[in-house]
């Protein structure tokens, strides 16, 4: 059905054209909703499911984490008669089940979400590499943007 049948008279027809322009103008003065990613960052929420670390002192070598992993990306490495988990992050879906099931809470998830590599093998973290806490500067690039600055009316912080 044509648009002329849907508007009542010339006045409304003109409004359908003018209104969006006015709205667009109003939106010019609202804060933007995006961030310029490599130059600014936006801190993930607390409890974010990012890269996994393992507290080697707490780990009791039970391998429950490997059994629950849906992607079978946790393998075991035997060092001095003890089994340690190793994670292939190339396959991990960050479901967090391994962390949830870990009896002494030795596996933890950090806020690290950006650890790109040039080849796939580097995404395989060996048992002792899992013990290192990631450097926060790896995801905190540029300057921090608070939710307040990128959105209008609603205040998150």
């Amino acid at each position, binding site marked *: 059905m044509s648009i002329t049948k*849907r508007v009542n008279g010339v006045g409304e027809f003109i409004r359908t054209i003018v209104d969006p322009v006015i709205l667009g103008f109003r939106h010019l003065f609202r804060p933007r*909703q*995006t961030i310029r990613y490599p130059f600014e960052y936006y801190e993930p929420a607390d409890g974010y*499911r990012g890269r996994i670390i393992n507290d080697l002192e707490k780990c009791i070598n039970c391998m429950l984490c490997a059994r*629950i992993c849906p992607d079978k990306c946790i393998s075991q490495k035997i060092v001095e008669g003890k089994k340690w988990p190793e994670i292939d992050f190339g396959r991990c879906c960050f479901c967090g089940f391994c962390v949830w099931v870990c009896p002494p809470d030795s596996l933890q998830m950090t806020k690290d979400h950006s650890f790109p590599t040039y080849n796939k093998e580097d995404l395989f973290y060996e048992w002792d590499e899992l013990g290192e806490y990631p450097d926060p500067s790896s995801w905190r690039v540029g300057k921090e943007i608070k939710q307040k600055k990128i959105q209008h009316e609603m205040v*998150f912080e």
Partner: protein
Amino acid sequence: MSLTVNWGPQHPSSGHFRMVTTIDGDRIVKAIPKIGYTHRGIEKLLENRDYIPAIPMIERFNMTDCAPMNMCWILGVEDLLGAEVPDRAHYLRTILCEISRIASHLYNLALYTVAIGMYTPFMWAIGDREYFLRLAEELTGVRLAFAYMLPGGVRRDMSEDLGGKIMKTVDYLEKRIPEYNRFVYESPTVEARGRDVGVLTREEALEMGAAGPVLRGSGVALDMRKKAPYAAYEKMDFDVVSYPEGDSHARMLVRFGEMVQSFRILRQAVKEIPNGDIHAVTKKTSTIVRTRGVPEGKTYVRCEAARGMIGLYLESHGGRRPYRAKFSTPSFRNAYILPKIFNNAPVADAPATYHSLDIWALEMDR
């Protein structure tokens, strides 16, 4: 002279989905959906998975709306187990399902408006959806693929200030409703593209087994949240939105109305959420599922996803893996409608009509 054209499977407006269309002039005279381009055999793979590690895979049915997929699976497992779920967990599940529904409807609004050539509401919807994904991130830890519900409860409690944040986000979006109304839902331009396009009458919808907003857009007020309440929906006060017209615009209005109802549900859920455990006995039910599996039995459960009713037939012969898990997903049922509503439709209307059905190809193929 008619011409046979492939629409998809990598067409920008069809998703991963192929339809063989016969075109005469600028009219589609015949359309046959070819289902299965993204078939991953998830139902078969489930037979080889433990109940809990199966959850992330089930969510891959539909990433924009993954909480109800998880919900359905958990309902089935809990039904076989006869597990008790604490009230607080019910409320948290409700909250996550509604956040997921709003995000999914906003995403569909974005796709629909871009299909009719309006880019501004596309940006708005995607931008506003981001706040709901942020809420989901605060609740579960990730923006998508939550894997949040487990047999017997949920995985983590909500933080103290999350309730306030949900209220603020809902307030913010409610303030935006007049803008959406003025420029999308009540705009003569959008209405001209959607009114009397892709009409599906009430009888046809019932006969062809339409689901969700498509069914409600044809005047059948059927919603599993009302009809067979699960989680905390029984205690929630909300209406089932339906419009009698059965055209593309009516389906969009249904989704919009549902979003407004979801705001109501979120408000009530946040206000009334009881204190207490989030797991029946800490981790106990899940531990039973993990170590001993699920007792023998069959069950059929259903819940309401953003795209319609999702049903699960689950059969267990004991042990840690299901014998058979059969999902009935709404997009699959809605795909049957395509030949009907594309019959003699102009080619220019095809993308908008397709998106008004909100078919998610991955959910359809499974």
